[in-house]
C-alpha cells in the first residue's frame, strides 16, 4: 500500500542528486574557448596593428640627458654641444644624424621646418662622420641646427642609447629626456607626436 507512494519520492530525490553539478563547474567547459579567444586575440594584435618589432624600447625616458661635451665641426660656424646646453628653460630636439645616412636625408626638410617655426631649439649630433662630409652635407641641404656636436666614435650616442641614425630626442625645459624617436621623422610623427609634445612641455 505504501509502496506506490514512496516510489515517486525516491525517484525525485535521485534526480535532484544528479542535477547537483554546481554551475561554476559547468562554466569550466567554456575555458578552452576562452583560452582560444585570448591566444587568437594576441596573434591578431601582432598581425594587424602596425607596430614595428625592430623598435628598441627606450630606457632613458624621464631620465636626465647623459653627460657629454662634444666639439664643434671643424671649420663650421656653429658651436659644439654639451649637456650644459640642454634644459635651461627651453625645450630642445637633439637629432643624431650622419652625412652617410640616407633616412637622415629624408627627414632633413622636416627638421628645417621645425627649426624655422616649430617653437623648439633644434640641436644636432653628427654620428660617426667625417667633419668635411658633415660640413658639405649641411652646406648642400641647409643647416637646421643651432649647435652641432661631433661624436666621432659614437660614445655619446651609446650614452643616449642610440642604436643607429637617425634618432631624435625631445628634451624638456629641465634637461630631461621625454621622448626618443627611432628612425626618420616623417610628417605624421611630427604632427602627431613631436609638435603636441613640444607644446605641452613648453606650457
Amino acid at each position: 500500500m505504501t509502496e506506490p507512494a514512496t516510489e515517486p519520492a525516491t525517484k525525485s530525490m535521485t534526480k535532484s542528486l544528479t542535477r547537483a553539478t554546481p554551475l561554476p563547474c559547468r562554466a569550466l567547459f567554456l575555458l578552452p574557448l576562452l583560452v582560444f579567444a585570448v591566444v587568437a586575440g594576441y596573434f591578431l594584435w601582432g598581425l594587424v596593428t602596425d607596430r614595428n618589432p625592430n623598435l628598441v624600447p627606450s630606457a632613458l625616458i624621464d631620465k636626465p640627458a647623459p653627460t657629454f661635451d662634444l666639439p664643434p665641426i671643424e671649420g663650421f660656424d656653429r658651436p659644439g654641444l654639451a649637456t650644459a646646453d640642454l634644459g635651461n628653460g627651453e625645450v630642445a630636439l637633439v637629432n643624431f644624424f650622419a652625412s652617410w645616412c640616407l633616412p637622415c636625408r629624408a627627414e632633413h626638410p622636416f627638421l628645417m621646418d621645425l627649426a624655422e617655426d616649430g617653437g623648439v631649439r633644434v640641436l644636432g649630433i653628427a654620428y660617426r662622420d667625417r667633419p668635411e662630409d658633415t660640413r658639405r652635407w649641411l652646406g648642400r641641404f641647409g643647416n637646421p641646427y643651432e649647435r652641432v656636436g661631433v661624436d666621432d666614435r659614437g660614445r655619446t650616442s651609446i650614452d643616449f642609447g642610440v642604436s643607429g641614425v637617425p634618432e631624435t630626442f625631445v628634451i624638456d625645459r629641465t634637461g630631461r629626456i621625454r621622448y626618443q624617436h627611432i628612425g626618420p621623422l616623417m610628417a605624421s610623427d611630427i604632427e602627431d607626436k613631436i609638435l603636441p609634445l613640444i607644446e605641452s612641455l613648453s606650457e
Partner: protein
Amino acid sequence: MAILALVLGLLVPAGAAAVLPDEVLEDPVLEGRARDLSQLIRCLVCQNESIDTSNADLARELRILVRERLTAGDSDQEVLDFLVARYGDFVLLRPRMTPANYLLWFGPLLLLLIGLAGVVLYFRRRLPRPAQGLSAEEEAQIARLTGQDRESE
C-alpha cells in the same frame, strides 16, 4: 674515438668571433671575461646577434667599451648594468627576471596548475559519492509525505 671527437666538435658551435686584433686585451683573463660578456650582449643593429659575432660599427664600439670598463675594474654585472641603463633589458640576450616579465617566467607553471586543478575537479566529480544518510529535514519530509499518504488513504 675520432668519431666521438668529431661529434663533440660539431656540438660546440664554432665561434665566429668578429673581434679584431686591435681590440684584444693583453691580459688573457680579462680578455676571456670580455669574450664571455660579449656573447651575452645584443648587437642593437643586427638584433639577433651578440656583439661578439657582429661586424657592425656599434658592436665594435660596444666591444671596446666592455673591455675598457673591465680594465677599469668593473665587475661583469656592473658592465651589464651599464649597458642596460642605456639600452634597456633588450640589450641582454639572456633575459633577466623582472616584475614586468614574471608572467613569461611563471606562465607555464600557472597553466600547469590550472590544468591540474581541472583534472582534480574532473576526477572528484566522477568518483562515486559516498552514500549519505538522509538528513533530519529529509526524514521529516518523508515522514510528512508518507503520513499524508496514509491519511489520504
